């Protein structure tokens, strides 16, 4: 029974990790074709991935979009999460549903919709549309993260601060926000990673000038089939793992995601 369970865990892990492992291993293949199992060993494809101009531009674009979109999502999300948690208003359920809706709507629909709206109002396919689209996509995750943080915070903390003579603005800055800091940081990191990896919606709303890294990668595969893609995938995985590990080390993801109860 114990061994059967262990075997199941190993099988599951293998199933989840297999594509990533295959891609990473192929990245070192000496042949100019993605194939498995690999023959030989070379850093060549990593070099090409890192020096290819479209990838470099796409990487910088992705960083900017991820940073701006997740910051905006945090600003909007914290205001909304606070309102939903603390106040009772008629449109509360509707607002909640609307903000969580992107989870149920395919990314290409959001990308397509954003594209149509943008062209209707005469906005070119510029940065604004890309960022706005990403904000919509990551908002549900940000909201969830902040909502959990708010729920885990004792409302008596704010009451105590008020009773000690602090005005509401001061209470927000000295008690509420510091209490939410882990949730804010965690939400921001998640939003940034999601935005950084987002492809489907981005494909619709980007142009050559604004293309993000995943879109640049897609365009690359349409023309070439060498292991640069695999090398880039390996780098992607490495970067995300490092960020998540740091986030977990300093913020405690279990707490942010609500899988651990911090209240005693």
């Amino acid at each position: 029974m114990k061994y059967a369970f262990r075997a199941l865990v190993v099988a599951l892990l293998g199933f989840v990790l297999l594509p990533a492992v295959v891609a990473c291993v192929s990245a070192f293949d000496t042949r100019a074709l993605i194939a498995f199992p690999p023959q030989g060993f070379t850093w060549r494809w990593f070099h090409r991935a890192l020096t290819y101009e479209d990838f470099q531009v796409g990487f910088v674009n992705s960083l900017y979009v991820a940073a701006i979109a997740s910051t905006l999502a945090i600003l909007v999300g914290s205001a909304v999460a606070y309102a939903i948690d603390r106040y009772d208003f008629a449109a509360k359920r509707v607002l909640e549903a609307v903000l969580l809706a992107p989870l149920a709507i395919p990314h290409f629909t959001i990308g397509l919709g954003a594209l149509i709206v943008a062209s209707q109002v005469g906005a070119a396919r510029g940065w604004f549309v890309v960022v706005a689209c990403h904000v919509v996509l990551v908002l549900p995750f940000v909201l969830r993260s902040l909502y959990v943080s708010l729920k885990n915070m004792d409302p008596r903390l704010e009451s105590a601060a008020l009773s000690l003579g602090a005005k509401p603005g001061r209470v927000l800055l000295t008690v509420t926000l510091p209490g939410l800091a882990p949730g804010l940081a965690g939400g921001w990191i998640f939003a940034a990673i999601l935005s950084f990896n987002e492809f489907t919606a981005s494909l619709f709303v980007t142009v050559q000038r604004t293309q993000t890294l995943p879109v640049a990668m897609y365009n690359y595969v349409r023309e070439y089939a060498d292991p640069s893609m695999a090398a880039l995938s390996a780098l992607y995985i490495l970067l995300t793992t490092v960020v998540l590990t740091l986030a977990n080390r300093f913020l405690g993801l279990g707490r942010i995601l609500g899988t651990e109860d911090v209240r005693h």
Partner: protein
Amino acid sequence: MSGTEDALRLDGVGKQFGTFTALHEAWLRVRPGEFVTLLGPSGCGKTTLLNLIAGFLEADAGEIFIGGKLVTQTPVWERDIGIVFQSYALFPHMDVARNVGYGLRARGVSRAEEAARVAEALAMVRLSSMAGRRPRQLSGGQQQRVALARALVIRPSLLLLDEPFSALDRNLRMEMQFELKEIQQKLGVTTIFVTHDQAEAMSMSDRIAVMSEGRILQLDTPEGVYRRPAHRFVAGFIGDATVLRGRLKGMDGVSAGVEAGGLTFSVPAAPLEGTAPGAEVDVFLRPEHLQPAEGEAGLAGTVVSRAYLGDRAELLVQTEGAGRVMLRVPGLAALERWPAGAPIRMAVGSAEPVAFPAG
């Protein structure tokens, strides 16, 4: 109107939640330095009343005065109160010293004065060595003392305590009660204490307001609510009373004679005013109102269970035809003579019970 200002005055303060009346017109005057407890079961309105005094809720009716100043419309942060919550509500991202100094910083007190007053407050609660700790590194009792220091360091006109001992275990609770009472008396700060624990209320209060269903039923000293309950609910809630149905035999201006279970009790006349002789009454008996009787006289019964408390024991006795009563006996005698199932005879004890018209 007296010449001295009340520390707290409630003039007909009421609160509705939709169609539910959480608090009926409450009237209360608290003298400076007094320790008044709002006592009642959950849902009696005591927490609502505390929240109204603190300003977390807005009164629908009546006026609230703190230190003679009308504060009914004043926001929480201008009411000059200190609160200790059941959860302590210490700020988790600040160390103990910064927690205690929070109210001083909010008042714009200078750094030097803040440091001095925080040190003084921490010394008062014997936590000077913990100034640099985070709240989660402290025990429950220590956290509570920090919360108390934080509430008192601002020298509030009024100290509000919201079930502050509920989260502590029994031994620590007793210790903290003594400590809190001592600090309160030393500082002379007017205190409103909310609890559902009658023992806590009895041991700490100058006066107790017993509440039920949104009403203050009786406001009196601990002895007053214990010995002269003004209401059936108070008689049943304070102390472990059992009710014995009986008949009123007669009364003069001060006391009345009541016959119940074959025994004749002398009770205060006031609660029975207007009751005709021969009418049914309920006698509220506590363990000290009965004592074991020798021979064949008195109320007969069988011991149902025995709670041995060392120097004494409390017996739950099933009487013949008069329901169950509690009885206090010396501990050693209980072990020898009255195990569960033993027959016992009971006579009227030295203390006087109260009776109310049958309800």
